[in-house]
């Protein structure tokens, strides 16, 4: 071992030891969070890493993701080369060939050589986007971000140049291993600078040491820059939510002495929620998908994660701190995340749908809401009557609970209490029961079920709000009260399926009621109606029908993947036009997450944004499969002065085609 080799070995060992210490510290920060079990289904988790890290499926969902794919895999191969080169510097004569054999070694060398060029191209595109094109999604109000991005891009660029430089000098020095055949780019570089008359051994040494130095710097810089995602993203994919993203965490209220509910400081989050903060790549895809951001509200999911991470970095203790000092407790609201941001969220889930490393934004915001609502009793004033209405009359509409089944008057809809057992329990929901427009939809659904001879019943006044709205508004206590009452009621009856025309109820029963011990087969009315049409129990006339655009509800399409059924029901009765933003990338109507019940005084109106998208399609109808979306479109059309365009639920369209 040469003197240089020894020095390098010491530096190498020291920087990796320091890096290990930093990683250990990052893990200890996570351990300061609350427990959460994400260690089940290991095989599915490994598979997720293969698909979303290896194949970069979500990254590649957008064209710019190709650049990331190239840099990621370039990084992997070139790092092998870097280690190979360092080891050979430390232990003279060592090469990767000794481990993998000459042929494979040569192949890896070739891959590194080619990836180098691809990475440079990717870096150029990245720099062009970051500093020239400046797309909306990279916009962030922290001046450190572009500086860090520029530094990292330049460092990678210099590293690649140095790699070619080192290899080029090796070729010039007559290396047997690195040749024109397995390192054509390096050879070309060598040829280009060969005539400069450099002292080759000195040039080789200088270039190698520069390269090594940057690597060591990189190693210790990454964990404290926005590039911490290199460490966080892969475990975050491994620990991703394998269940439904439409399931919020269940809170436990058994502790009578508890003084605090929800999240107000970082250590109140679970370790996985903190890991999310390491994982953010700052790609900003969530930002441009977010309906709040798109309509000029203060919320951007990207900024929330960015600020929480910044808070994590400022709240963390020193590398060797212990106990509570590892992650100090400072209030998140209002400095890191403001109340306006928290209440702007429609919980539409578009951010989570876009996020390449599967960050779970919505739960974080709901956790903050939980603290504001339940611990501090602090929330927009208009929410209080909503909570009260749900407490007293089990619906947000301020209508007496005993009139819940009034919509069905004269329709001969059987009550569950008079039947006991039946095939389908029609869960009408609050909108379908109390909202005048929703009632019309309920009547259409009931008429279709009767026409098709379905054996169904409703709960009538026994039905309570499913709790979805309360839950997403952060009032988990009220939500659980409603959920538990409903479960008691439902357990009294025997039925095969619960069917509802409301995607919010649908998501609740499908993704959340099982948390509380009720697992019944749940179907959206689009699923049942499609089955009835397929079985010819409903026969819409097939003469084209009206033409209209179908809008995907977030809680039906994005959260639960019910995309095909409403379209097929519609296409049996109408001609369907598609929105530009559709299916699981649909744009929220603005009513989710309790926003239906709040004033929208910040930015422009989400429903108007979506309505304008509709109007751009030049159709005079919009079809929905959600009572909230229906209301939001009707309001949007009214406020844009386009009441000539009408909104219908798919059940109404089908009923019309069946002869009304």
């Amino acid at each position, binding site marked *: 071992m040469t003197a240089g080799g020894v020095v390098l070995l010491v530096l190498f060992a020291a920087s990796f030891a320091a890096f290990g210490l930093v990683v250990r510290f990052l893990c200890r920060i996570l351990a300061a969070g609350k427990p959460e079990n994400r260690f089940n289904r290991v095989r599915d988790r490994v598979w997720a890493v293969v698909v979303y890290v290896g194949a970069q499926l979500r990254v590649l969902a957008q064209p710019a993701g190709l650049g990331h794919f190239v840099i990621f895999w370039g990084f992997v191969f070139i790092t092998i080369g870097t280690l190979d080169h360092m080891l050979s510097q430390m232990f003279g004569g060592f090469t990767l060939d000794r481990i993998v054999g000459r042929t494979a070694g040569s192949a890896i060398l070739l891959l590194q050589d080619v990836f180098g060029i691809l990475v440079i191209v990717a870096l150029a595109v990245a720099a062009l986007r970051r500093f020239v094109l400046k797309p909306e999604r990279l916009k962030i109000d922290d001046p450190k971000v572009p500086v860090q991005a520029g530094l990292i891009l330049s460092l990678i660029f210099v590293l690649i140049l140095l790699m070619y430089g080192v290899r080029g000098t090796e070729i010039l020095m007559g290396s047997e291993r690195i040749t024109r055949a397995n390192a054509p780019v390096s050879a070309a570089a060598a040829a280009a600078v060969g005539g400069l008359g450099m002292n080759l051994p000195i040039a080789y040494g200088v270039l190698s040491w520069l390269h090594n130095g940057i690597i060591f710097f990189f190693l210790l810089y990454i964990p404290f820059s926005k590039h911490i995602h290199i460490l966080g993203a892969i475990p975050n994919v491994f620990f991703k939510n394998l269940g439904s993203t439409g399931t919020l965490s269940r809170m436990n*209220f058994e502790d*009578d*002495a*508890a*003084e*605090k*509910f929800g999240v107000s400081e970082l250590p109140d989050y679970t370790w996985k929620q903190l890991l999310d903060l390491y994982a953010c790549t700052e790609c900003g895809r969530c930002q441009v998908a977010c309906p709040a951001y798109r309509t000029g509200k203060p919320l951007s999911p990207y900024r929330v994660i960015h600020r929480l991470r910044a808070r994590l970095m400022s709240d963390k203790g020193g590398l060797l701190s212990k106990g509570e000092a590892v992650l100090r407790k400072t209030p998140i609201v209002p400095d890191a995340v403001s109340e306006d941001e928290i209440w702007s969220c429609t919980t539409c889930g578009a951010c989570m749908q876009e996020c390449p490393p599967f960050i779970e934004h919505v739960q974080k915001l709901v956790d903050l809401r939980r603290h504001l609502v*339940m*611990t*501090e*009793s602090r*929330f927009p*004033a208009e929410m*209080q009557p909503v*909570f*009260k*209405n749900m407490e*007293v*009359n089990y619906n947000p509409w*301020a*209508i*007496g*609970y*005993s*009139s819940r089944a009034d919509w069905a008057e004269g329709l001969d809809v059987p009550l569950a209490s008079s039947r006991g057992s039946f095939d389908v329990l029609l869960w009408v929901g609050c909108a379908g029961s109390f909202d005048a427009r929703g009632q019309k939809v309920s009547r259409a659904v009931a008429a279709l079920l009767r026409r098709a001879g379905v054996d169904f019943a409703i709960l009538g*006044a026994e039905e309570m709000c499913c709790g979805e709205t309360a839950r997403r508004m952060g009032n988990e*206590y009220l939500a659980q009260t409603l959920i538990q009452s409903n479960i008691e009621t439902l357990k009294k009856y025997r039925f095969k399926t619960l069917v509802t025309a409301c995607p919010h109820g649908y998501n609740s029963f499908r993704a959340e009621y099982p948390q509380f011990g009720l697992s019944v087969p749940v179907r959206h009315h689009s699923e049942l109606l499609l089955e009835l049409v397929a079985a010819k129990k409903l026969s819409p006339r097939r003469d084209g029908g009206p033409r209209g655009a179908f809008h995907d509800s977030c809680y039906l399409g994005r959260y639960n993947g019910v995309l095909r059924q409403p379209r097929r029901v519609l296409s049996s009765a109408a001609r369907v036009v598609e929105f530009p933003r559709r299916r699981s990338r649909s744009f929220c109507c603005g009513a989710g997450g309790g926003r239906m019940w709040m004033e929208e005084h910040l930015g422009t109106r989400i429903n108007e944004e979506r309505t304008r998208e509709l109007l751009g399609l030049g159709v005079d109808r919009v079809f929905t499969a959600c009572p909230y979306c229906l209301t939001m479109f009707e309001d949007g059309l009214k406020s844009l002065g386009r009441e000539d365009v009408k909104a219908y639920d798919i059940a109404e369209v089908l009923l019309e085609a069946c002869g009304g």
Partner: protein
Amino acid sequence: MKIIALMKRVPDTEARILVNQEGTGIKDDGIKYVISTYDEYGIEQALRVKEKAGGPSTVTAVCAGPEEATELIRTALAMGADDAVHVCDPALASGDPFLAAAALAAAVKESGFDIIFCGKQAIDDDMGQVQTILAEMLDVPQVNVVTGFELSGDGSRATLRRRIEGGDEMIETALPAIVSCEKGLNEPRYASLPGIMKAKKKEIRTKTLADLGVAVPGEARSAIVRWVPLPKSSGCRMVQAEEARDAVRELVKLLRDESKVI
């Protein structure tokens, strides 16, 4: 400072009220009960006074009502009242304001008081008598339909605001006094969950009229004789016409000839 908040259990404003067959009261099934809206302003004001006064002040919620009122008393405790007195006696079911006032007077005398807040009226029978009878029984001043409240620095007096035609009236009163509250005085808080949890352990002292030494008179000073449902309305009729002028003409004709009101 001993602050009292009076509260009454009343049918929810959204409940469908139907007179029972015998005409002795309303049908109870399908009705949810709540704290009377104006009493909620009183509870909120009591809590605000306590928070501002600091020191050893307490808020006691006092309710005269049936056993089922306990749930609502817990709500007042969850909002922040320290303890509660529940006068629970079958004799109170008669709805006689005099008896209710006598019960409340005995209860607040027992617990002591520096100021009493209540609603300007209960939203069920809208009689609005209790606070006045109570003031007489306790021989303290009363200020009604209050939309603003300010306690003096030493806590011995209060300045109150009343909305009157064309302006506000400012009234100063010595304490103890009874203040009946109007909408606009404050926005009642929503009980926090720790508040709800704590309320489970707070004390509710349940008393009968006998416990309080209130004699039930053989005959009530006033009694509800009979409840009569409203005659079914014939429904609303929309007057429609192409021109507004024709619609007005038709409306006038109907008012004159059909309903004979002009």
